[in-house]
């Protein structure tokens, strides 16, 4: 039987408020709590709650035959915990069915996989813990932010103990090959790759309500017909999409919920497909070939590359300035600072600075609350300036300070932290110890010397096109 694998990305960033130059050194609240809550509540009511309910009904109806998988970012989990706990409960109900798999990823939907620092491993660890804590699952499959993947990232993820990784079936990487098979990482052949079938995925995610599309309206008959048309030897169709497709990108009025409700039945009755989760797919299928990916790919835009987040001067400057703070972060113990550090790494901040307005501008504008990438950059850099000042102070206030000054400074710091703890909601306080312990652990991990050799080779190959890949 052929396999079909549904994966949904669930993510919301912590958006920044308008943070002016005059705020630097004075105000340390960076995030637009009002907008973040408002957007979360809206998306929860239009998408998360009704779709979760629908999927739960489908799972119950098909008694274990209908399966899905989620990748939920830490920033979204934090938001639903503090703004809308009901959503968390509904995800937990899905987790309890045993037909829903949760994937590992970076805690804050960050681009840390593109950096050589241990921040990547650290964040994956944080996220893994969070998933275990909330859903009682130990993820075995990994998905990086926006399906970003390269040979090196695959290898790093393998070292952390994951068996498989999801990525885009990018044409320029696959060439004549079909995405409808299991592949493996060319550095670590034990690392399995599941590739997104972007045509069939985007038929649902992007084209479903497009009336100018020749195949509109999309019905389950049509869709299952297309599924049946894939190559005779093909083994798996990976349908990867934003969870917000349901009810938010495609409104309920477009019929997206009815489509989803009818799809499993139609697949069972009219095709030779069964549903699997990524870990089952990796278990059941044999990889057919390696997929060599020297340059990072993603699922974004026509190019399927990183240029939505990195590459222009604004993005590269902000990105470099952010990760230049990493050595200080390793010494920092202030839980509030460490939390802001996570949220500031969210890839969306760099997405807002993207200047490719012409080809994919529509999608970019949809997700963007800044009126220009320049404003996004200025705002982010102002926040980062204040953040670095706080970070430096917090690090320099700890042990090294002369004994005479220390008690004063510490008392001040404690007061501040205490005030902030009291102000922030309960879940925030709960999470903090988890982060602290993992900070200590991160530097202990050692990378094999082999890796750095390979890195250099890859760097050379990468040449000028991907200067950020280190």
């Amino acid at each position: 039987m052929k396999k079909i694998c549904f994966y949904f990305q669930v993510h919301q960033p912590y958006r920044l408020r308008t943070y002016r130059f005059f705020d630097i050194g004075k105000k340390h609240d960076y995030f637009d709590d009002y907008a973040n809550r408002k957007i979360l509540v809206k998306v929860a009511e239009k998408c998360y709650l009704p779709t979760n309910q629908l999927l739960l009904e489908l799972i119950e109806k098909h008694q274990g035959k209908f399966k899905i998988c989620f990748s939920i970012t830490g920033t979204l989990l934090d938001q639903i915990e503090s703004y809308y706990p009901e959503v968390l409960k509904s995800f937990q109900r899905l987790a309890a069915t045993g037909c829903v798999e949760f994937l590992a990823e970076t805690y804050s939907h960050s681009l840390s996989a593109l950096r050589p620092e241990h921040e990547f491993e650290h964040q994956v660890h944080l996220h893994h813990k969070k998933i275990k804590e909330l859903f009682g699952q130990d993820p075995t499959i990994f998905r990086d932010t926006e399906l970003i993947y390269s040979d090196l990232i695959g290898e790093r993820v393998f070292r952390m103990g994951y068996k498989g990784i999801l990525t885009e079936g990018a044409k320029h990487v696959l060439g004549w090959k079909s995405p409808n098979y299991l592949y493996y990482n060319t550095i670590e052949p034990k690392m399995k790759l599941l590739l997104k079938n972007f045509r069939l995925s985007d038929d649902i995610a992007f084209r479903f309500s497009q009336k100018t599309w020749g195949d509109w309206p999309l019905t389950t008959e049509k869709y299952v017909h297309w599924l049946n048309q894939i190559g005779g030897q093909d083994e798996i169709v990976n349908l990867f999409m934003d969870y917000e497709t349901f009810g938010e990108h495609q409104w309920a009025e477009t019929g997206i919920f009815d489509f989803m409700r009818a799809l499993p039945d139609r697949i069972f009755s009219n095709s030779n497909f069964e549903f699997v989760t990524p870990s089952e797919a990796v278990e059941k299928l044999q990889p057919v070939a390696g997929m060599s990916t020297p340059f990072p790919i993603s699922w974004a835009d026509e190019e399927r590359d990183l240029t939505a987040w990195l590459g222009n001067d604004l993005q590269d400057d902000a990105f470099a300035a952010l990760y230049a703070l990493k050595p200080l972060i390793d010494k920092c113990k202030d839980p509030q600072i460490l939390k802001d550090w996570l949220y500031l790494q969210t890839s969306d901040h760099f997405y807002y600075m993207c200047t490719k307005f012409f080809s994919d501008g529509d999608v970019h504008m949809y997700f963007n609350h800044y009126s220009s990438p320049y404003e996004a950059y200025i705002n982010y850099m102002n926040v980062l300036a204040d953040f670095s000042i706080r970070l430096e102070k917090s690090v320099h206030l700890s042990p090294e300070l002369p004994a005479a000054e220390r008690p004063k400074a510490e008392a001040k710091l404690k007061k501040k932290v205490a005030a902030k703890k009291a102000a922030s909601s309960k879940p925030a306080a709960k999470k903090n110890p988890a982060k602290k312990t993992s900070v200590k652990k991160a530097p202990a991990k050692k990378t094999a010397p082999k890796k750095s050799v390979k890195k250099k080779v890859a760097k050379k190959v990468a040449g000028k096109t991907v200067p950020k890949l280190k």
Partner: protein
Amino acid sequence: MRVLMFGWEFPPHISGGLGTACFGLTKGMAYHNMDVVFVVPKAFGDEDQRAVRIVSADQQTINIRDQSFQDYWKHLTYLEVSSGLVPYVSPEEYRRLTDSTEHDYTDIKESVFAETFNFTGSYGPDLFKEVSRYALVATKIAKEHWHDVIHAHDWLTFPAGVAAKMTSGKPLFVHVHATEFDRSGEHINQQVYEIERMGMEYADRVIAVSNRTRDVIIERYGIAPEKVVTLHNAVIMGITQRERYQNPLDEKIVTFLGRITFQKGPEYFVEAAKKVLDVDKNVRFVMAGSGDMWQRMVELVAHRRIGNKFHFAGFLNGPEVKKMFDMSSVYVMPSVSEPFGISPLEAMQSNVPVIISRQSGVSEVLNHAIKVDFWDIDAMADAIYALLHYQGISKMFARMGHEEVENLKWDNVAFKLRGIYQSVTNA
């Protein structure tokens, strides 16, 4: 003596130095008992408050009924002309602006001359039409308001000044705060240039804000040297000594404040910032203002990878400007071409040492400022570093500069101006 004066901006709605200069000048004239009928185009309909309120030196809004201002107001008749004139834009820019903005309001009731001229309220997207329309209104004003002399500020009002002169036959003084060469470099707009030259030729005296500008007028516009006089600007004295705003940051701040346009040389500031940051991380740079080169400057800052130490504060209003100066340790005005440039004087009032380009008119009147060529980013970086690190010079500059500026009074300027008027009226 009664002066009919045409301007195009007046506080609080100012986009550049001209509004401030007009305010200071008219204040000084009031001090010397000259009456002024001040005419300004009313651009976007949100200036209603201007007729009843006026802004003080540090741009805090105060009621004109306040004792100190009554005297001034007594000497000033303030007229607004309904018009789409927008200061500081090129004709090309103006077309772009008016294409996109809400320009269709009908606001004729409030306009002084609406009844007679019955403007439609929806203005054509042509800056030159607006300029001629303003001139048309001027003839009417010249008839209705008796005056001894006519005074027009910059090219947008020159046709109005000329029209008024045609009507009343009184002497015309055109005041040149900036020429087309300052605004556009060598790529001048020929139409604007023609209007400027026409105004200067019709004028009985051409008043230049600096010797630099006087030279340009003589050389580039072919005006007879004996007809062109220099009248340096001054600075409005602080009315109230407010508490100094403390810089909350550990780093010292170096500031650029002005329109982010070719004329102001913003890129030299960025490049100098890069040079300073290469050797001293403990400093922050701020570029405040807006303009057509803003995006390019943001990109340049990012390209030089100094975004974490270089901030864009956007356009600042009066109190924010004061705040910005209070926070600053050095003020830089790297203008490529600056006929005068009042902002360094304001910085010096706030005890901030300044670096100004030799290509600015203000460098003719200042001694206690570091002067560099706008293109010499090494010298600029050097000067910034020195003022940040060598207490001796920065303290001296702050103190002496403050004194120097205190002596640049609009009262004195107005006194000289009366002399210029009289050289024609008494001749």
